[in-house]
């Protein structure tokens, strides 16, 4: 446990899991391994695991038999079976040259298409939580492959979210609806056609014409589309008595109600941070950085307020009061974990502090705020509230923002609006944007009204368009039962849907990439949606076309989305384009840009006159005490699969969830303390009671959640809320509010497709239709005694040297030391060099720099002499090279190092800006054809994502960690790459531009490179993940599954395969279907089994850019061909919403990456290994309130201005020599004189010391002078 004192994050412990925090022996072993234990073995392990898990569960080690099933007989049996199957397969296809056909265009040739070159079109993706994202779509000969943000769109500005990136898989979803289905009362479900529907519909809907649509109900999604609104008007004109219910499945309508009280109109609060005018941000359960309609704009603005370049730069300060742990909470400078109702209490307490002092409109509510009773409790820290109030007032008018999230009641939203108005924030740091009537209405209440109507028999035909109420409606409505009561139900849907399954008619719709449409973003920007490809499953109608069909005179009429959209746009031309004439050029401009720019700006809204509704709301607000473990509070959250519509997208299922890093699941999240109290902590989590938690080190009950069993195993609990009971696994999340359960929506789909079916648990039935928030109280949770596997990637790919891989300081330390360098003189080696602020935080300040005794032509660091100046008799060169007879070698050297010619690629990742959202991971997956492997494969550590986002906690308290930080790590392209020297076939070698190439066709799969990679960024294709179907079938499947034991969910859901299809020989497996193949990037190889892969720095984009620049004749002033800065972006950089990733030519003096790489916050990950990574990470700077630190975290307060772990007696003034002797057991370090004499150095351990002595000796043997510049 002593290494913790060396941590480069406030000197506090840095850990990713309970196991790592306590640093058990098992964990050390786990760390040393390339992959988690057991992942290299085949199947038999599983039986052993079952026994082991049973032993863990009963706390009886004797139950684990310890007998290995991986014996030779089992192995031979398996192999024999495989060989037999392979033999059959080998006989089928021959060994022939593939006969490829080239199909050209025929009569009609599109003018712009150049075969072999992608085209880019703009469009927009409507978001289910409101607004839209403007996108730029890469299409290859008419086939969209990758979605990127539209650089012109004010929300995206070229960036994209995980949802917009992954929505291309909605288009290529192999399980989506392909044709209409009719549930014939006599014959059951039959495949039908749109013609059948049209014929049936013209009869059916005719009956409603006479009744003016009575009995007809439409249940649609809330939409920002003006054309959809026009279609609604048409429907309601034709059938005035029809019911139109627009809902949003995951909405909390409290904001709409609260702003209605405050402003008299329903509003949506939108962040508008800027470095110039945002100093203090206070969030009450509002995760504005992720899973939020304006997440892209908020993340970008927030990053801008946090960026520190100069030591004089100021940062905004973020206070977060939240119940779960969100991206916003992780980004906070001060965070308080509170149950949802207590978050409201904290807001009221803040209002009590603010109201008397702020004046203005707050005066009107002062009495009402004072009247609200807030039960006291230990959970709320009054100091934080007071400091918040002080800072909000001190920030000045319009310099702060108070944001309230979806778990909060209307009164809280109203209160925040009044406070924002009083602080002058409205229109500056916060904007309030009016909602239209359809958007403003409460979804669950609307559903309730519809349910009543159905119950009373008032609905004879229900048309669901894009909605899936059977899956996601609140449980008290029992929508599945209601649907059965409606005589005729028609469901239009794109992906597979539970509602469609239960409907009379299921109609296949088009995705937004296949049809015309339009959308409006939250900030009011209008975007046309243009199709990228004809509907894959024709015929199909888009939502607006379907509505137009229903509202038209004849059901047989042709409907054309293009004409519908144009008609609406033409009708609004005066408002949107400023003129009615000249429609055509302006429309074409809008199609080209993807937006209409001349949308009228909105003026900041004014508060309602007397605020009596706000006062009334506050009067009705009753706040309870903090919840107890017998009656938990609940926060419903959204995760990577959104409200369930992305459940069939493997990329998102396999993207680690925020905080827990859990994949393929949505366990109930509890704080460790609550989980222990309720007896539902994961297996291997060895705390019996609260006393253990208080003194974990003394009781010595080491945690082994991840290391004791082969797979992490959760206990299954029974949850009862609002009369509904479900069983779900429970997982712990450090930093969550105690006695609060987080239930993630969007999982537990039963009819989503091969990927999403049966993944996780559906918590929607536990919601009730009467609440307007995504929170509830009164949850009963009890252990069932069952267990289940929960897969969390947080301990995968653990790097050794955790004490300095992550580095963070507080703003005062940066201000004090940011511009200083420290000269390191090492007496042992006689070397001198300067290290920057960031490197001073790590090992380099107390270990000597590494100088290779080999003359590495790739060395381009400050430690290296200029290679162009090396002379033949240079004493630093190894003797064999100094030999004049080696003239050729020397001549080669004289020409300069391999890395002296431009371009040389490099990347920086700014940890201050990174929010951990995962957009880089998904963008990389989309760009580089990275496979999805499934739940159990991930459990074995076989996930393929090239960029992993490591999540670290700090501090000693598992239940309440100090901070949560993120570090994206992909291949860092070492100049001295350890992987390259061990590859026996030269499959991974270095390129002349500094890229560490991975040549797949050379790779023979020894995995030596992955073993030797200290960053653990290499991914191995253990099976044919990339070319066979996920959860697919295989020949003889029935026969095999008849004899195979049920292994319950090996790839993803397990609903579709009883045994792991990966274990079937590749030839027998179902190949990837053609539709899924269409997404693949044609410029990147789809890797097959037995091949290593890793980040390539998007070499395909680099090569394409180089070719384009060369053909265009772009040259620099010296006449060299160059790729200009910004000519292209790598996929992760392009997606990153907070601009944390910078990529470019590090030899370009003007490039941004040169500036960031040289920046004082920039450090090399594991730099002391002399790997010389091309990717550098930048120190996270936080901006805590010193007064709070002083009272609550004196340890960190002491380091506020002295971040270096060797304490205050090393001032670190410029030019001062330092000699460090870390490692003395009591932690004291004596400054030593720099004398050039070898001293008794102790580094990290004695072994290293020995090696270093030998190294120094070798330098002397090679007559490399000591004390000189190396």
């Amino acid at each position, binding site marked *: 446990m002593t290494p913790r004192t060396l941590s480069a994050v406030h000197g506090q412990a840095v850990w990713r899991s309970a196991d790592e925090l306590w640093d058990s022996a098992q964990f050390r072993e786990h760390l040393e391994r390339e992959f988690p234990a057991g992942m290299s073995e085949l199947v038999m392990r599983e039986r052993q695991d079952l026994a082991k898990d049973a032993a863990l569960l009963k706390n009886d080690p004797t139950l684990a038999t310890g007998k290995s099933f991986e014996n030779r007989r089992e192995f031979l049996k398996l192999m024999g079976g495989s060989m037999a199957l392979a033999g059959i397969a080998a006989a089928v296809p021959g060994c022939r040259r*593939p006969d490829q056909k080239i199909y*050209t265009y*025929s009569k009609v040739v599109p003018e712009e298409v*150049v075969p072999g070159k992608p085209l880019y079109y703009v469009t927009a993706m409507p978001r289910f939580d409101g607004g839209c994202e403007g996108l730029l779509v890469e299409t290859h000969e008419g086939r969209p492959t990758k979605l990127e943000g539209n650089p012109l769109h004010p929300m995206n500005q070229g960036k994209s979210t995980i949802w917009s990136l992954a929505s291309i898989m909605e288009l290529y979803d192999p399980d989506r609806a392909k044709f209409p289905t009719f549930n014939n009362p006599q014959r059951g479900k039959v495949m039908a056609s749109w013609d059948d529907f049209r014929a049936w519909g013209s009869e059916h809907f005719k009956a409603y014409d006479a009744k003016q649509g009575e009995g007809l109900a439409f249940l649609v999604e809330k939409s920002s589309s003006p054309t959809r609104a026009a279609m609604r008007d048409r429907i309601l004109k034709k059938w005035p008595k029809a019911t139109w219910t627009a809902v949003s499945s995951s909405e909390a309508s409290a904001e709409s109600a609260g702003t209605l009280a405050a402003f008299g109109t329903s509003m949506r609060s939108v962040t508008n941070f800027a470095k110039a005018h945002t100093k203090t941000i206070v969030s009450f359960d509002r995760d504005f950085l992720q899973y939020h309609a304006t997440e892209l704009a908020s993340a970008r603005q927030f990053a801008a307020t946090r960026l520190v370049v100069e030591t004089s730069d100021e940062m905004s300060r973020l206070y977060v009061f939240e119940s779960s742990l969100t991206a916003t909470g992780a980004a906070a400078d001060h965070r308080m974990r509170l149950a949802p109702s207590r978050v409201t209490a904290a807001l009221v307490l803040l209002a009590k502090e603010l109201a008397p002092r702020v004046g203005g409109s707050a005066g009107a509510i002062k009495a009402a705020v004072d009247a609200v009773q807030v039960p006291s409790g230990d959970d709320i820290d009054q100091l934080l509230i007071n400091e918040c109030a002080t800072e909000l007032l001190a920030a000045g008018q319009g310099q702060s923002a108070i944001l309230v999230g979806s778990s909060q009641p209307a009164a809280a939203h109203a209160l925040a609006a009044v406070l924002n108005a009083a602080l002058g924030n409205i229109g500056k740091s916060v904007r309030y944007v009016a909602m239209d009537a359809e958007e403003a209405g409460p979804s669950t209440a609307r559903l309730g009204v519809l349910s009543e109507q159905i119950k009373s028999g008032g609905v004879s035909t229900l048309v669901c368009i894009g909605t899936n109420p059977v899956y996601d409606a609140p449980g008290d409505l029992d929508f599945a039962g209601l649907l059965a009561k409606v005589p005729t139900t028609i469901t239009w849907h794109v992906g597979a849907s539970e509602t469609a399954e239960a409907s009379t008619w299921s109609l296949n719709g088009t995705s937004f990439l296949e049809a015309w449409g339009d959308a409006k973003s939250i900030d009011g920007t209008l975007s046309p949606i243009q199709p990228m490809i004809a509907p894959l499953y024709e015929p199909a109608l888009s939502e607006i076309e379907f509505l137009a069909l229903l509202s038209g005179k004849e059901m047989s009429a042709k409907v054309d989305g293009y004409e519908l959209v144009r008609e609406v746009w033409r009708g609004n031309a005066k408002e949107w384009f400023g003129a009615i004439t000249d429609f055509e050029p302006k429309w074409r401009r809008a199609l080209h840009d993807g937006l209409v720019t001349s949308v009228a700006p909105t003026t900041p809204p004014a508060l309602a006159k007397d605020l009596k509704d706000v006062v009334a709301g506050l009067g009705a607000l009753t706040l309870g005490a903090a919840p107890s473990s017998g009656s938990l509070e609940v926060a419903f959250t959204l995760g990577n699969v959104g409200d369930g519509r992305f459940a069939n997208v493997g990329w998102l299922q396999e993207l680690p969830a925020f905080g827990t890093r859990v994949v393929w699941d949505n366990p109930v999240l509890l704080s460790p303390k609550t989980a222990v109290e309720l007896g539902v902590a994961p297996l291997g989590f060895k705390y019996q009671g609260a006393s253990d938690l208080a003194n974990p080190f003394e009781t010595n009950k080491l945690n082994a959640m991840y290391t004791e069993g082969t797979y992490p195993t959760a206990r299954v609990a029974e949850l009862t809320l609002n009369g509904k009971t479900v069983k779900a696994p429970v997982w712990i999340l450090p930093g969550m509010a105690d006695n609060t359960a987080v239930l993630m929506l969007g999982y537990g789909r039963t009819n989503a497709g091969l990927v999403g079916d049966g993944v996780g648990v559906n918590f929607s039935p536990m919601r009730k239709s009467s609440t307007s928030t995504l929170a509830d109280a009164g949850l009963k949770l009890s252990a069932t005694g069952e267990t289940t596997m929960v897969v969390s990637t947080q301990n995968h790919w653990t790097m050794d040297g955790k004490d300095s891989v992550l580095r963070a300081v507080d703003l005062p330390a940066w201000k004090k030391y940011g511009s200083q360098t420290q000269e390191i003189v090492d007496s042992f080696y006689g070397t001198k060099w300067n290290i920057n602020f960031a490197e001073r935080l790590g090992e380099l300040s107390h270990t000597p720099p590494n100088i290779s005794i080999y003359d590495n032509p790739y060395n381009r660091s400050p430690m290296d002499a200029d290679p162009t100046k090396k002379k033949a008799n240079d004493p630093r060169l190894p003797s064999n090279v100094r030999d004049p007879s080696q003239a050729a070698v020397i001549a080669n050297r004289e020409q300069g190092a391999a890395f002296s010619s431009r371009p040389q690629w490099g990347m920086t990742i700014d940890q201050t800006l990174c929010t951990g959202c995962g957009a880089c991971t998904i963008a990389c997956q989309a760009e580089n054809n990275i496979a999805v492997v499934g739940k159990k494969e991930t459990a074995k550590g076989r996930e393929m994502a090239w960029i992993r986002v490591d999540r670290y906690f700090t501090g000693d308290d598992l239940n309440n960690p100090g901070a949560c930080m993120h570090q994206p790590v992909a291949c860092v392209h070492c100049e001295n790459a350890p992987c390259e020297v061990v590859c026996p076939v030269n499959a991974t070698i270095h390129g*002349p531009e500094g890229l560490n*190439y991975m040549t*797949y*066709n050379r790779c023979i799969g020894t995995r030596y490179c992955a073993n030797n990679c200290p960053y653990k960024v290499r991914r191995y294709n253990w099976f044919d993940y990339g070319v066979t179907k996920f959860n697919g079938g295989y020949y003889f499947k029935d026969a095999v599954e008849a004899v195979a034991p049920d292994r319950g969910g090996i790839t993803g859901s397990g609903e579709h395969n009883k045994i792991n299809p990966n274990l079937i020989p590749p030839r027998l497996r179902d190949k990837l279907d053609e539709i899924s193949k269409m997404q693949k990037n044609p410029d990147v*190889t789809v890797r097959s089994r037995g091949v290593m892969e890793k980040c390539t720095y998007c070499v395909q984009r680099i*090569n394409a850019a180089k070719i384009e620049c060369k053909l265009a004749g772009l040259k620099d002033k010296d006449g060299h061909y160059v790729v200009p800065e910004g000519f292209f972006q790598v996929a992760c950089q392009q997606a990153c919403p907070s601009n944390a990733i910078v990529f470019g030519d590090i030899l370009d003096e003007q490039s941004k990456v040169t500036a960031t790489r040289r920046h004082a916050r920039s450090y090399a990950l594991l730099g002391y290994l002399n790997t010389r990574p091309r990717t550098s990470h930048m120190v996270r700077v936080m901006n805590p309130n010193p007064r709070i630190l002083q009272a609550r975290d004196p340890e960190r307060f002491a380091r506020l201005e002295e971040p270096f772990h060797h304490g205050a007696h090393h001032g670190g003034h410029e030019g001062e020599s330092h000699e460090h002797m870390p490692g003395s057991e009591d932690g004291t370090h004596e400054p030593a004189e720099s004398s050039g004499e070898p001293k008794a150095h102790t580094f990290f351990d004695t072994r290293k010391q020995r090696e270093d002595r030998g190294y120094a000796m070798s330098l002397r043997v090679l007559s490399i002078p000591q004390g000189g510049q190396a």
Partner: protein
Amino acid sequence: VSVLFPKWTNVLPTVFAMGALGGAVAAIGGFWYYATPKFWRVGYMPTQPGGGFNHQLHAGKLGMDCRYCHTKVEKSYEANIPNVATCYGCHGAGKLKKMDQSVIDYSPTHVAKTEFIREAFAQDASIPWRRVHKVPDYVHNFPHHVHLNAGMSCYSCHGRIDTMPVVFHAEPMSMSWCLDCHRAPEKSVVPKEKVTNLAWVQDELTKRKETGTVGVDAQRVLETLQKAPPANCGACHY
């Protein structure tokens, strides 16, 4: 013992050893020769739909430039196969009447040979041409545009297409074959304006080979190259 193994068996080990050696040599030699692209790919001549496009006639006799049909070869990675509309431009009903009767055969049987073009055009269907030249999937985007603009002639990779009635695979297109040129481009680069003049290029390159010299033009072109052609893995494999 002598009963079991008569004396003549003493030579057996030698015979077996020699046999094994010979077999090994034959196997390795056979593999060396037969399992290479040089054997498998050179000469590949698939039958094309409709009797195929006669390059000898069009590019040779009629003197059509390669880029008349492969329109995007200077602009894109791919040397695109012409659209049916391009074929139809000449072979549409009654379109060839104006041309020189001495070159073009207007006999009804000959005209019938191009009927498949008009049929495809009428149906707006494409003609399923069979691919002759193909690099493996792990070789990415052979950039025709870069090579052409750097002065690499069609001839260097495809041979004398203008003499082929039916196109066949003229060069092995193996990796070592690629690298031969990438390591010594001066042997193959020609002035950019000559890249589609296959006969001239053949003459020039043969001359260079025979005399062991490098043409003045090649020097000029080399100077305009950005740098030596890449010979690293990442240039093609990713």
